[in-house]
């Protein structure tokens, strides 16, 4: 097996035993990126020099016996994470040439452990989208089939793992942006509980919903990555000061007696038969492992998408106000006067979907509409949160599809935003409730596109969903299939 194909834990073993060096692993990865990037376009920026420098440093560290599980591992990051000295665009023209002066906390933590940064990954512009089609840098393709989207917004994070262009990646998830692309590309993707991972230095889309999480080849890698970035950060007031458990230690192969809820509202019409089949098979697998199933109700599910598109866009309309061409980012230099400069810079700098959401959010917060939209949405959000709290009184985890359909075709929904928005119907409620969810590979469509299922846990119940996902993975073969390229 080629070095670029290994998981974190496999490569770590080889590095630790000095069977290979990080430089070798990194070269293998850079070659792989070069070989397949034209077909996938996972990256906005590849950083070979930085990568080799990191790899050499990692090898020196390993030689001193100071190896961490992530030392020398080639990692790529969604281009939403600020990386000091390395261009960070958020897939927007407005930040096309933005070189950040500082590292986001998640990146700093990974660097401390000695990762090798191979590049910055494509995404929907400002993480607004479900297909990675809204990127200023072009569309990423699904490694399983070039005509299909990889999902989004962390499309590059998932395609990169499926195409084996990095050992592990980080994404962000505001309404499903880790779990949905992970599902569409056959990877493992986890959205932690809100507050589990610092948002400092992560370009904000919707602050009360955004959360950093890993996209990886398997559940064990997912636990490693989560453990590396989780924890309280004094620079993020919304990060929670709770100890970080040893997530890898939670990966025991046992779900006997685990109570799994099946929310009635998630088995809707319009659920793709292949998704339904994957769900049925997953239920059977868990039953075979001794888990108990019960039907539950999350009665406000129907309102989740509407609620999300009011809250997320309201916050976004304010978060994106700083891109005004004054201090950094794109500026129209022909503008006459201040207002003109604002309008032209933002008009040229932002894409259609971003503008649409800024306008939606601005409207929702406007005087005279605030109560009817934003405030009402906040109230419904509380109800959705309560739905989950109530459900978790009787079950340990909730099992649902990740998306109603497998990956759709490039261009299929791009001009139909409502259809696009509905593709996040099963992931959005988790963000609104602020709890955690993981997507694991659970089947394939007739076209050969991967399908994932989602396990939703209690707030800070990452160990439980990782354990349940691990047990499932160890008893299925889905994660072993690889995209032919």
């Amino acid at each position, binding site marked *: 097996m080629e070095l670029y194909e290994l998981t974190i834990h496999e490569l770590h073993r080889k590095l630790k035993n000095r069977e290979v060096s990080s430089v070798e692993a990194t070269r293998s990865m850079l070659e792989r990126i070069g070989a397949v990037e034209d077909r996938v376009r996972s990256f906005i920026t590849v950083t070979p020099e930085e990568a080799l420098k990191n790899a050499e440093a990692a090898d020196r560290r390993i030689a001193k016996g100071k190896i961490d599980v992530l030392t020398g591992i080639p990692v790529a990051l969604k281009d939403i994470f600020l990386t000091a000295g390395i261009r960070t665009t958020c897939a927007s023209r407005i930040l096309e040439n933005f070189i950040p002066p500082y590292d986001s906390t998640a990146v700093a933590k990974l660097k401390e452990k000695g990762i090798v940064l191979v590049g910055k990954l494509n995404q929907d512009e400002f993480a607004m989208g479900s297909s990675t089609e809204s990127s200023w840098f072009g569309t990423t393709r699904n490694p399983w089939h070039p005509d299909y989207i990889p999902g989004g917004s962390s499309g590059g994070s998932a395609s990169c793992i499926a195409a084996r262009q990095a050992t592990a990646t980080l994404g962000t998830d505001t309404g499903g942006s880790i779990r949905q692309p992970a599902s569409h590309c056959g990877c493992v993707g986890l959205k932690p509980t809100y507050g589990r991972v610092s948002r400092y230095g992560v370009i904000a889309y919707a602050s009360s919903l955004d959360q950093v999480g890993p996209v990886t080849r398997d559940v064990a890698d997912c636990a490693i990555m989560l453990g590396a970035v989780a924890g309280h950060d004094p620079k993020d007031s919304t990060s929670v000061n709770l100890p970080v458990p040893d997530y890898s230690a939670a990966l025991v192969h046992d779900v006997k007696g685990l109570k799994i809820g099946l929310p009635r509202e998630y088995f809707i019409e319009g659920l793709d038969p292949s998704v339904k089949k994957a769900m049925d098979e997953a239920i059977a697998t868990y039953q075979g492992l001794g888990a108990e199933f019960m039907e539950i109700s999350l009665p406000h599910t129907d309102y989740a998408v509407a609620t999300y598109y009011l809250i997320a866009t309201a916050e976004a309309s304010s978060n994106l106000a700083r891109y005004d061409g004054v201090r*950094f980012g794109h500026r129209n230099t022909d503008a006459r006067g201040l207002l003109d400069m604002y309008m032209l810079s933002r008009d040229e700098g932002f894409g259609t979907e971003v503008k649409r959401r800024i306008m939606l959010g601005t409207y929702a917060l406007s005087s005279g509409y605030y109560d009817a939209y934003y405030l009402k949405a906040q109230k419904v959000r509380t109800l959705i949160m309560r739905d989950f709290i109530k459900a978790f009184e009787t079950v340990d985890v909730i099992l649902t599809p990740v998306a109603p359909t497998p990956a759709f075709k490039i261009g299929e929904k791009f001009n139909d935003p409502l259809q696009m928005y509905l593709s996040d119907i099963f992931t959005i409620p988790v963000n609104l409730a602020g709890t955690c969810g993981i997507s694991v590979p659970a089947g394939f469509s007739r076209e050969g596109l991967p399908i994932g299922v989602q396990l939703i846990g209690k707030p800070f119940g990452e160990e439980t969903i990782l354990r349940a996902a691990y047990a499932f993975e160890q008893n299925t073969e889905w994660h072993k299939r690889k995209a032919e390229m």
Partner: protein
Amino acid sequence: MKYQVVIGLEVHAQLLTNSKIFCGCSTRFGAEPNSQTCPVCLGMPGALPVLNGKVVEYAVKAGLATNCAITPRSIFARKNYFYPDLPKGYQISQYELPICVNGCLEIEVDGETKKIGITRIHMEEDAGKLVHMETMDAGEKSYVDLNRACTPLLEIVSEPDLRSADEAVAYLKKLHQIVVYLGICDGNMEEGSFRCDANVSLMPVGSDTFGTRAELKNINSFRFIKQAIEYEIERQADILDEGRKVVQETRLFDPATGTTRSMRGKEEAHDYRYFPDPDLVPLVIGDDWVEEIRGTLPELPDVKRQRYVAEFGLPEYDAEVLSASREIAEYFEACAALYPQAKTISNWVMGEVLRALKEDGREIADCPATPRLLTDMLQLIEKGTISGKIAKTVFEEMYKTGKEPARIVEEKGLVQVTDTGAIEKIIDDVLAKEPGQVEEYRNGKEKLFGFFVGQVMKASRGKANPAMVNELLLKKLKG
């Protein structure tokens, strides 16, 4: 006038914290542009605010000193608007749930005491500063300095309880005194550390429905606030007299002309789209902490003034002057602890001490004539070592050099002459030199007594004990 004036004030006080409200940058004034900035106050992508606890403490202090209720759970909100000095495109402020509510202050105007309601006090960040410059090649250019961005402010909003420009000034002075007393604001109005917007409206006398108001901005002195309000009252009265309607608008005060002019109307008013800032969790303040802060509050001017009257038997006027600033009060109290005659101290502080300080523009905390030196000097007067008149000379020297008064007296030979023989000899000499005057006095022109005292004091170079001079002189003249 047939109109009732209604005024409400919004005051912005910059807090004296070392670091900014949402980041660790210094708040020092006058540094190199943009040298006191970081990703947070520059509004960089991904940067997040973290609340400075000191700001909360100062806000609670202000609230307690103005009789407010402290909100147990208050919320930061974003006020959205675009301007180049506002890096994030929104200002973090408080909106629906401010930290302090329902307070009041008592003011006194023309001998009458009046209670003025305080609607709310909230915390917020300041914006940066634009610098416009003419360049050699590119015409006029604007530069942004973000050193001030994110420095902490309190906004203190009064109820529309003020009924005249004088009341507004009295309220503003009272508030100014309190925040300076608390040590939370330097009160410098010229540098904008304490600034004020005024909402002014008129309604017919006897009406209970407020008229349309104008908001006056850019008022940075007590004199200007009076000018601005008085001008605005006249302007609105003229409009109403002509049967026209006052337009709701924001007006800019121009100190050069003493007038106000329209800045923007209601139609151009911003829709700030306030909403709770999702980057900051609700601010929860426990009663314990509020009580702890209450325990650290200094004695406030009103209470101090009353105590000076009750405890030291000072006249109202003295008590007011001595309690006007915390530093003067501290000086006075330090003196009072060393010397029992409070009124004597008061006379010296209000007289020589404040005069000397004013002359060379010094703060009382830096007064070279420290409370110990001053009271040592007062003891010398009491013991009769020097006269009150000589003491003025001693004070001058003490203020100049900071030397011990006893040493000054000794070095300059200022010890009072209390020897009867010595004084009698001087008197004899004076009387011998002025036989004509003595004659006139003895013939009934008693007014001349003062003349003789003056001559004797002069001859003794001021050192003769004045009481003894009086007594002996009288004896000799009558004799």
